[in-house]
């Protein structure tokens, strides 16, 4: 199973600053391994973020997002203590959901 995400969520004024690190190979499908075999494409395809029970962000990603992806975004009107739930699904159907609380 995929490693957990690292989520940091901090209020700055009236806005929550949320950063997430995801553990994922993000293989393009164009790279060859040492044996010369093409490494099959394997990348996160969709991301959702819920804050305080509401969907605030949804994204779609291709293989050009860097390996071990990093995303940062801001949510106005969130409060300290709100729960942040982040989910990703990749092109093989692997998925991962992690939570954090806004500090």
């Amino acid at each position: 199973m995929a490693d957990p995400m690292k989520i940091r969520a901090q209020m700055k004024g009236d806005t929550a600053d949320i950063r997430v690190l995801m553990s994922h190979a993000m293989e393009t499908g164009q790279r060859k391994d040492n044996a010369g075999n093409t490494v099959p494409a394997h990348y996160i395809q969709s991301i959702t973020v819920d804050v305080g029970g509401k969907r605030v962000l949804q994204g779609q990603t291709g293989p050009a997002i860097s390996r071990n992806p990093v995303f940062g975004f801001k949510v106005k009107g969130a409060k300290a203590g709100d729960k942040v739930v982040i989910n990703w699904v990749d092109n093989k159907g692997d998925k991962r959901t992690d939570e954090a609380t806004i500090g």
Partner: protein
Amino acid sequence: MKQRLGMLIAATALATAFAAHAQPAPKKAAPKAPAKSAITAEFEKFREVLEEDNPAELFEARGEEIWKTRKGPDGASMAQCDLGLGPGVVKGAYVRMPRWFADVGQVMDAERRVVHCMVKYLGYKEEDIRKQPFSNEQRTPDHVSVVTYVAAQSRGMKIAAPQKHPKEIETYQIGKEIFAYRAGPYDFSCATCHGADGMRIRTQDLPNLRKPDQAVRAYQGWPGYRMTGGFMLTQQWRMNDCFRQQRFPEPNYLSDSVTALLAYMTVTANGQVYKGPGIKR
């Protein structure tokens, strides 16, 4: 000391023999680039952005999990591992190695000590670790994640590698000597690239490892997240690769020579604040 250097010289002779059908000359570090080029300034601007969210944290978390939850065949755990500050104490231990460990009668750097403990307490096999000591795109070995965790537990602390035990002092001296020792098919030493200010390879500035404020840059770069490939590499790897780049034979994993070089670099950086784990190009 003589003996160890002797080993190195013998190896060098071998390398020289191979050099007969060597590749084209390596690009020498261009001397005296301007102190800070525009390109370096541009890299540094975004370096902060990259450091802010360093994927090294993912490996740190994996290492922490191994340190805190993994059990060996006899039920032992890393809680018994003494990194120099007492069994199980991780906080601040990294910046106080290499150091003398009486239980093994050796000076060990952090990576060597971590591997020692993982073999002793968690039942890892040293020969397995030696099969793939360094990370690649397919796999980051467990000990690399644990080293990353241990290093991160010294973030923000002053580097304070001890120089009390005679062996600690001797190890530093050997490291200093290896650093300046010119040999190999191109008559390089570590100091050829890292012994003066303002050196670089292509667009990379090279720290002068004789100065504390620059030695710390090299020290805290590794363990570091390598953006090319996207995995963690350690100081042991960095030293190995420097030997390779000098066209020296590569040292065995966890060799005395590498511990000595690390002792030299770390002691030089003593007093500086550790800000790693790093993120590198």
